[in-house]
């Protein structure tokens, strides 16, 4: 017999027991019987409320932490109201230092260095970008290198084409 069936049976027997008691012929009898029926349920209600409160608290804390994480990264361009994380990858086994430089970090080569993972020479960085049109390039040991995985931008005034990323 399942726990639920056993609990229902117990509630039913208690309600029957209350019904067998002598009646006074007033509202107190109805209250007494209904209290017997709902005694277990009222206990479960408190348990459910506590569980709901715990879940709500978890959601609030998680949302707070997520907001904290998503507002990190390069300073958003003024006027943009949303951002999202983007991963940038450069493969260069021979490179010694790689950084991500673009309109999202004021073209500062020190702002977003890529980290090398393993000996294969895969460099990567995950940064938060505000919505909009961004141009960028990798700076590899002082050389400017476009991102092969991204569309090429129009700019070439300074001798090197940039890559473009659009963030919604």
């Amino acid at each position, binding site marked *: 017999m399942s726990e639920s069936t056993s609990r229902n049976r117990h509630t039913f027997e208690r309600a029957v027991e209350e019904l067998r008691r002598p009646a006074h012929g007033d509202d107190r009898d109805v209250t007494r019987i209904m209290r017997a029926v709902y005694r277990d349920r009222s206990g479960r209600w408190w348990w459910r409320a506590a569980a709901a409160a715990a879940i709500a608290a978890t959601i609030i804390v998680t949302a707070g932490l997520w907001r904290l994480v998503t507002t990190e990264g390069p300073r958003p*361009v*003024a*006027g943009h109201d949303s951002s*999202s994380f*983007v991963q940038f990858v450069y493969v260069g086994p021979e490179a010694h230092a790689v950084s991500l*430089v673009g*309109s999202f970090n*004021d*073209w*500062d*080569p020190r702002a977003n260095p890529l980290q090398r993972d393993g000996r294969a020479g895969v460099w990567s960085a995950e940064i938060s*970008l505000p*919505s*909009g*049109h961004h*141009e960028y390039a990798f700076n590899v040991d002082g050389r*400017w290198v476009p991102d092969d995985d*991204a*569309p*090429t*931008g*129009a*700019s070439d*005034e*300074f*001798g*090197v*084409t*940039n890559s*473009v*990323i*659009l*963030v*919604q």
Partner: protein
Amino acid sequence: MLRRNISNAALLTMLTGATLAAQQSDARLVGRLSRSAVDSVTALTGHATARGLPIEPLIQKALEGQSKGAEDRLILRAVEDLLDRLNRASAALGDDADDSELVAAAGAMHLGVSTGTLQNVVAAYRDQSLAVPLVVLTDMIRKGVAVPTASSVIVQLVEARVDIESLQRFRRLVERDISSGAAPGEAAIIRARGALLERQRGFSPPAPEWRPLF
């Protein structure tokens, strides 16, 4: 006569100085560009503001030039050219265009895309982000597709209401074909035909879960 010219010049200099002083220089420029370059860029951003154009792309262009080691003269010319293209892009796209669309349109114009092409894209894609087809157009031209061919292809795709995800897919396929040795123009035309057929059949590839469009 000479005295009057000198006093006019002095007045002009004072007025220019007062105007520059009134326009606060962007703090990011100070220390990275020479004082005169900062003043010139500030004057150009002032013009942009007066015309309702975004100034951030101009600031970023100046910072890009400094970061890439360009001389002041080259930086100022690049910022000036960008201001001119933003102005023309704004006229072509209309008042509803956002900053991303203006920058994308200015980029396409830099490579020779006509105002007429931009206006056709606007007319066909008014309710979608114009930045996406314009970035695809620019990328195609950069990959070697002739401007008239690339312009024609993009206008046909947006007139057929090919969606943003399909445009992204189209760009990647053209890029892959060119990398594999296909002639750029042929790759663009063949892949555009495929995108149009998919549109007719109602095929729509799944939308990417990540938010960046490229």
